[in-house]
């Protein structure tokens, strides 16, 4: 547990090449706005594509996480949630979002970004009214987490339930763990 608390910050400090946040958000902003144009502001489709793009990234990004951190297997969903925020978010985006709203069975939780802490929206402006209701601007993150967790045998559902850009007090990404996928053990091995 203590390793999870510090290793994200260690990797960020010592093992990470960095680029300017502006460059990153300009690229992401261009992708989102192109999708809005392409799908003529059908935000359901835009959200889907952002989620899918993130999912594909998540499938690959987990390899880098494991290689750089040597993170041990998590023994509870609470540990997993800690690893997502303190290791995953820290080593890629240099933020540590908060965790909260745990369900009684500990299988659902929220990743919470208080205003001003989500780097993806740092320079977002000119938001139209419908987008304010329907577009989940940071939906790529939902996909990344789902993809990455699936690679460590956790099948889950992820969705944004509120967003500062939509006028909410905080941005909240809900994670529901559906099931633990069975490890596929090659024949002849225990």
């Amino acid at each position, binding site marked *: 547990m203590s390793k999870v608390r510090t290793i994200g910050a260690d990797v*960020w400090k010592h093992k*990470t*090449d*960095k*680029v*300017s*946040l*502006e*460059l*990153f958000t*300009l*690229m*992401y*902003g*261009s*992708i989102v*706005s*192109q*999708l809005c144009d*392409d799908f003529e502001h059908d935000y359901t489709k835009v959200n889907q*594509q952002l989620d*899918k*793009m993130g999912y*594909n*990234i998540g499938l*690959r*990004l987990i390899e*880098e996480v494991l290689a750089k951190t040597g993170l041990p297997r998590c023994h509870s969903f609470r540990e997993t949630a800690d690893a997502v925020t303190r290791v995953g978010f820290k*080593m*890629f*985006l*240099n933020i540590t979002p908060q965790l909260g709203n745990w369900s009684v069975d500990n299988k659902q939780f929220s990743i919470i970004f208080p205003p001003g802490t989500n*780097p993806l929206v*740092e320079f977002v402006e000119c938001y139209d009214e419908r987008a304010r209701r329907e577009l989940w601007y940071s939906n790529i993150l939902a996909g990344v987490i789902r993809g990455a967790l699936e690679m460590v045998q956790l099948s889950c559902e992820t969705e944004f339930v509120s967003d500062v850009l939509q006028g909410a007090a905080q941005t909240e990404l809900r994670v529901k763990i559906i099931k633990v996928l069975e490890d596929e053990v090659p024949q002849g091995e225990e």
Partner: protein
Amino acid sequence: MSVSQSALDYLWIEAVPLTKEVSEILGHKDNINEEIFYRIEKHGFNVGKGLAYLLMREQTQAIGSQLDVIKFVCKDLWQLLFHKQIDSLKTNHRDAYVLIDTNFTMCQRMSSNKGPEKTAEMAKPYLWLPAGIIRGFLHVMGIECRVDFDAFDLPLVEFSIFI
């Protein structure tokens, strides 16, 4: 403020299949490659424009001649994008510039088992991004141009600017 290089890499790498899929959904099946190039270049153009405003805000001295602007691309813009400078700059002293990066960061780890020619072909969509960034940056600086590239000997990449 900064984020990890990998986070950015994942974005621009995944932008290509995303663009391909969206182009297919929109029914651009016949000219799919042109459509991908056009869209990726446009992303570059947007990023380049944004970076120009950003860099100019921090720039205290005016940049004078056309050549000075190109030199700024080779040094400052390249530094911001790729943590290095362009290795050599050629020009006909009129309207064409060639920027040579002998070890282009984006392509250092690109390889395939299909031979150099095919690999260069596969790298193409990704390279429209920096080409677009250069064009977008120069657009803000008042220079309208076309930017092309040669990538037959990766990771060496030549960007040609025609004004």
